[in-house]
């Protein structure tokens, strides 16, 4: 395990240095960091080791599929291809002169980008890991867990007992599959994002948006009578306040998942930015003597990020469970707003 971590760190360091050197000329830490955090049509593992991912475009309803390598010439310069061009990490329609065309309407980009590819890898990993575990449960029925099973079992039990049972109540079983899936999805992707060359998937707002929307939809659709009555006729509040209360409560429904979305995105992206910034210091000062300090801080941050990876998965799952709990809770007495948004 220790060896693995050392290997990880060394890779991260090397890949950051290589990246900076490859860009040549003046070092721009902002560009380097943005490039690392943002999505891409290629997967750049190390200098010279680049995977060109497929581009899928829906142009006015017509699908177009081609390799992103078409956007690069032999000198690795960006060139237009087939009437499309790559600019600042996005694909646009190009006009005859190779400039960005004025009309960009109804051009949808469904490319398998670095993030999407990383998503597929993480999902494959999730499926393999948990199918294996399910298999060992089927094999060793009623027996003590072993191997990978015994690593994940306490986590699964923790999610069941401390997150689901504690926050949802007796109806927790319905939400277990979703809670387990988001927990492990976020955790796995957070960790994969920390791998050298890994994509910043959970630090991408589109991904957190989808996850938060799922939580929102599940909350809204499992809301019982007392949940809705709290929104449209909050007990203990005079009727004349309804014009204020109802919009506030409705906004409240949306702000909860919005906070989930921003929290995960910001935490993961910030972690990446900090680690990359620490490495950038070496190149900003153009001195090898800054490196030990930089690396020491980066290692500290990396450990912190390993913790944050788990923590954010836990918080997302916990808050989702709280929202579900609020939606299915039976309010027996007036003014029982037990489920606030525990900000982290």
């Amino acid at each position, binding site marked *: 395990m220790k060896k693995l971590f050392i290997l990880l760190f060394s890779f991260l360091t090397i890949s950051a240095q290589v990246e900076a050197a490859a860009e040549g000329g003046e070092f721009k830490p902002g560009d380097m960091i943005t490039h690392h955090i943002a999505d891409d049509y290629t997967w750049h593992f190390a200098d010279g080791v680049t995977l060109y991912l497929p581009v899928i475009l829906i142009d006015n309803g017509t699908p177009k599929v081609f390799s992103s390598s078409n956007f690069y010439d032999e000198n690795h310069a960006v060139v237009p291809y087939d009437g499309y061009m790559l600019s600042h990490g996005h694909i646009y329609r190009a006009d005859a002169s190779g400039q960005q065309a004025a009309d960009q309407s109804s051009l949808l980009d469904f490319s398998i980008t670095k993030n999407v590819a990383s998503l597929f890898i993480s*999902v494959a990993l999730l499926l393999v890991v948990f199918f294996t575990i399910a298999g060992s449960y089927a094999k060793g029925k009623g027996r003590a867990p072993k191997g990978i099973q015994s690593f994940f079992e306490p986590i699964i039990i923790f999610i069941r007992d401390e997150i689901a049972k504690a926050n949802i109540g007796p109806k927790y079983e319905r939400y277990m599959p979703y809670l387990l899936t988001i927990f492990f999805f976020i955790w796995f992707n957070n960790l994969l994002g920390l791998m050298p060359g890994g994509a910043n998937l959970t630090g991408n*707002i589109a991904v957190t948006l989808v996850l938060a929307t799922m939580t929102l939809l599940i909350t809204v659709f499992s809301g019982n009578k007392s949940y809705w009555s709290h929104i449209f006729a909050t007990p203990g509040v005079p009727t004349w306040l309804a014009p204020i209360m109802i919009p506030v409560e409705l906004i409240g429904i949306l702000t909860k998942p919005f906070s989930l979305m921003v929290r995960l995105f910001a935490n993961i992206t910030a972690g990446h930015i900090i680690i990359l910034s620490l490495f950038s210091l070496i190149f900003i000062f153009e001195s090898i003597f800054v490196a030990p300090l930089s690396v020491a801080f980066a290692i500290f941050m990396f450990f912190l990020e390993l913790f944050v990876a788990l923590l954010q998965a836990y918080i997302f799952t916990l808050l989702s469970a709280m929202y579900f709990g609020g939606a299915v809770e039976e309010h027996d007495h007036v003014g029982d707003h037990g489920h606030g948004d525990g900000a982290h």
Partner: protein
Amino acid sequence: MELVTPGIGLIFWQTVTFIIVLFLLSKFAWKPIMNALNERETSIENALSAAEKAKLEMQGLKAENEKLLAEARMERDKILKEASDAGNALVETARQKANEEGARMIAQARESIENEKRAAITEVKNMAAVLSVDIAERILRKELSNPQAQQELAKDYINEVTLN
């Protein structure tokens, strides 16, 4: 701004992939895992409660055994006491009988001694009578060896008879 603008492509892929994964994991991973965990927990709980029950039963059995043992001990003591009582009684009756027998025998002996004594006394009396008669006879014979004395005696008798 670039960072906080969600791209349609990633939203699409994330939604599709996540829903598929959610479905697959729910059906083929979470369901069997949760079931297995629940089953194992129930079986452990059952085993524990069975052990507890067995322990209680054991305690009950032990208590019962002790009770039986105590009862048996009491029974033994009772039997021993009864036996010793019976023995004592037996000895007592035997002693009584022996005493009685002894007393009877003594009484009998005394009686027969008395009889013997009486018989002996009678015999002694008779003997004395015979002896006295003999002695008297001899005396008389000696006394009456002279005729004068015989006459005198006869005279006496005759006097006596007449007086009667």
